[in-house]
């Protein structure tokens, strides 16, 4: 009994220590919640920014936009939110969780079809000749939702039924294409550019799906954080734009 009590007490002590050390926002710390497809570009952007602003440290959280919006709604620490679609930004705006005046467009992306197949695939209609096609799960992955819209709009829904392999995110569907487990996947151009074996076979016509927009905004907490505000403003500048373009994003 005594040892048990002792054990419980030490666990409590450890937990208290963890809570005390993890919660307070340090001065100069910026927590960013960013759509997973921006991961590599944002890592480089943050690296460049941190070099010229030595006081600022970053806590980076990359995940699916919907999941991030959910986390922010539940009170996760975040100063800046970049979503892979307008839907989740609006969702937080309606709940007054983001600072509305700070919302602006950060970047644009395109959908492409990429694969390692030797067949000549040049258009949406050619997809019917393939066996397996990877897309993100339309319910939870925006890229998958757009891909499904493009398929429906081209009238291929019936022809491709049973051929669609749905992955938990864009990167997983690209991984399937890279391993040759699917003939190709509908992914963002920026992801396809990183692939080694899978090549971009065609760009999905922009008329088939809504424009892929990445909006950025400060959260209500972030609007009070001077470092977050200056980072938010810096993202508009030349250096950040150049890095975005390097990774295949469009900036207008």
């Amino acid at each position, binding site marked *: 009994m005594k040892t048990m009590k002792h054990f419980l007490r030490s666990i409590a002590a450890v937990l208290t220590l963890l809570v005390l050390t993890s919660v307070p926002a340090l001065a100069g710390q910026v927590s960013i919640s960013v759509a997973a497809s921006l991961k590599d570009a944002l890592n480089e952007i943050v690296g460049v920014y941190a070099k010229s602003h030595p006081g600022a440290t970053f806590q980076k959280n990359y995940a699916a936009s919907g*999941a991030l919006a959910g986390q922010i709604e539940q009170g996760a620490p975040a100063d800046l939110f970049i979503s892979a679609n307008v839907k989740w930004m609006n969702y937080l705006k309606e709940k007054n969780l983001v600072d509305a005046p700070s919302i602006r467009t950060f970047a644009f992306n395109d959908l492409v079809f990429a694969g390692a197949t030797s067949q000549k695939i040049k258009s949406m209609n050619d997809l019917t000749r393939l066996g397996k096609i990877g897309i993100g799960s339309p319910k939870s992955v925006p890229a998958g939702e757009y891909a499904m819209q493009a398929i429906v709009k081209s009238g291929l829904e019936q022809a491709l039924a049973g051929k669609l392999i749905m992955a938990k995110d864009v990167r997983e569907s690209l991984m399937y294409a890279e391993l040759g487990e699917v003939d190709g996947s509908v992914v963002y151009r920026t992801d396809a550019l990183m692939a080694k074996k899978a090549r971009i076979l065609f760009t999905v016509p922009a008329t088939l799906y809504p424009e892929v927009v990445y909006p950025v905004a400060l959260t209500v907490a972030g609007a009070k954080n001077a470092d977050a505000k200056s980072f938010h403003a810096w993202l508009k500048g030349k250096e950040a734009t150049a890095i975005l373009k390097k990774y295949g994003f469009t900036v207008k």
Partner: protein
Amino acid sequence: MHLTPEDFSAIALSIKIAITATVISLPVGFATAWLMVFSHFRGKVLLEVLINLPLTLPPVVIGYFLLLMLGRNGWIGVFLKSFGIELVFTWKAAVVASAAVGFPLLVRSIRLGMESIDHQLLQASRSLGAPWYDTLATVILPLSLRGMLAGSSLMFARSLGEFGATIIVAGNIPGLTQTIPLAIYDYASSPTGTAMALSLCIVSVALSVSVLFLHEVIGKQLEHGGKA
């Protein structure tokens, strides 16, 4: 509580996959447990580590290995393809994933059952001239039944919850490979899916609780050994 037709197909699929994985694994699990309990051979420790590995490996690792082995370029995948069998991205891949992850639990329970068998019974059987296979069929098998039941229920419950390996090797295709945990993941990835996610969570908890309850009841009987 609101379930869509897709949710019902996810529930049915989960149960089908868990049952298939358990039924297929049972004879192999029995043979393995028998080997571990009643025979002595070189490399037994190695086999033990191999069997228990899926308990500690991240399921994602198992899923990735399975994808590489069973896929179009994997050696098992190529071999099966020559018979026209394709596993990856089908419900059968989910069965393989569940079987791999649940197997150690099954073997563990059967072993516990076998180890509790009275050795005098085995000696009696041998001294009466029964060959090893006769002893196996008439003494060990009937006395291991409860262990097999307990192990099967545990493995069944584990298979119902399999996520990490399944989502890699089987994908997340509604109606084809989307099991309960995968459907919950889909809902949980968007804040508007909370109510839908919770409904399926309740189903998941109810299933697990009932199977584990059954497992406990069987376990209690097992404790009383052959006397019950």
